[in-house]
């Protein structure tokens, strides 16, 4: 961890001192993160691709303002989030989206779906294409505030602290949203997970 940061700090200093080409190397580990962050907001491949380019260019132009009080990855994620939000506003009209999201944050039943005939899922079942597709759809259908936290934490593997910084919310809110996102996904995907297990109806039943 420490060495990544030291390495990055070195690269940043050299880019700023004129070795511009090294910026390519600096961002390479984060290409995926930048794209997925954008995609979690705009939900459109082409828009996410364009937004990722804009994010990287913006980071390049403003590299001198990176202070190192946050991690470089968090700083980059923040730029990506702002870029995504800008694009979303342009595409939809912000009022509609934020209303929907506010409503979503107070509604909903955040209890998981109980599985009554669950057997430990064989690893090869996770290899199925339909399951991946179902997960992509389910993530895309999460309300935005949950989808963004889920993307940063579980997809891009930022820490709670980094996710909070990047989204400008407190760590407590990250945890609550992440919990809800995971439970919503569990609920949505149970039918897909279940069909992979042999039916053992009546084998085990207990009221929660």
């Amino acid at each position, binding site marked *: 961890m420490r060495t990544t940061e030291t390495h990055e700090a070195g690269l940043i200093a050299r880019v700023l001192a004129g070795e*511009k080409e090294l910026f390519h190397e600096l*961002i390479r580990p984060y290409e995926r993160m930048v794209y997925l962050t954008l995609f979690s907001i705009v939900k459109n491949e082409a828009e996410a691709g364009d937004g990722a*380019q804009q994010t990287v260019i913006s980071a390049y132009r403003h590299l001198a303002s990176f202070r190192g009080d946050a991690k470089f990855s968090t700083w980059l994620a923040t730029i990506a989030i702002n870029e995504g939000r800008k694009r979303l506003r342009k595409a939809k009209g912000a009022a509609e989206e934020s209303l929907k999201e506010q409503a979503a944050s107070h509604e909903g039943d955040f209890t998981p779906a109980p599985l*009554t005939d669950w057997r*430990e899922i064989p690893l090869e079942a996770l290899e199925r294409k339909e399951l991946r597709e179902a997960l992509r759809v389910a993530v895309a259908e999460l309300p935005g505030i949950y989808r963004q936290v889920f993307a940063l934490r579980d997809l891009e593997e930022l820490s709670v602290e980094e996710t909070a910084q990047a989204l400008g919310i407190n760590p407590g809110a990250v945890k609550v949203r992440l919990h809800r996102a995971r439970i919503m996904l569990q609920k949505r995907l149970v039918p897909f997970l279940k069909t992979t297990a042999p039916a053992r109806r009546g084998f085990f039943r207990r009221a929660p």
Partner: protein
Amino acid sequence: MKLNCKHVWEHISEYIDDTVDAKLREDIERHLEHCEICSAILDSTRNILVLTADDRTFELPVGYSERLHERLAKEMENSEKDSTKE
């Protein structure tokens, strides 16, 4: 403390992230030992996270990286021209 299922569900995400305190962890584990419902919920949620972190689930568009670096190279070129103009 004896936990019921609902308590376990409330902490399932933190349990997965290993951010519950030792006492609560112990209580949850004791509950999981005898509750197949909660074990199944935990298992299925973990599987979803494994699948999420798998690069093949959320793939990048073909040519994404190439286009990104091309665009960046162009930007560098342009900024060079700008700075030599001054």
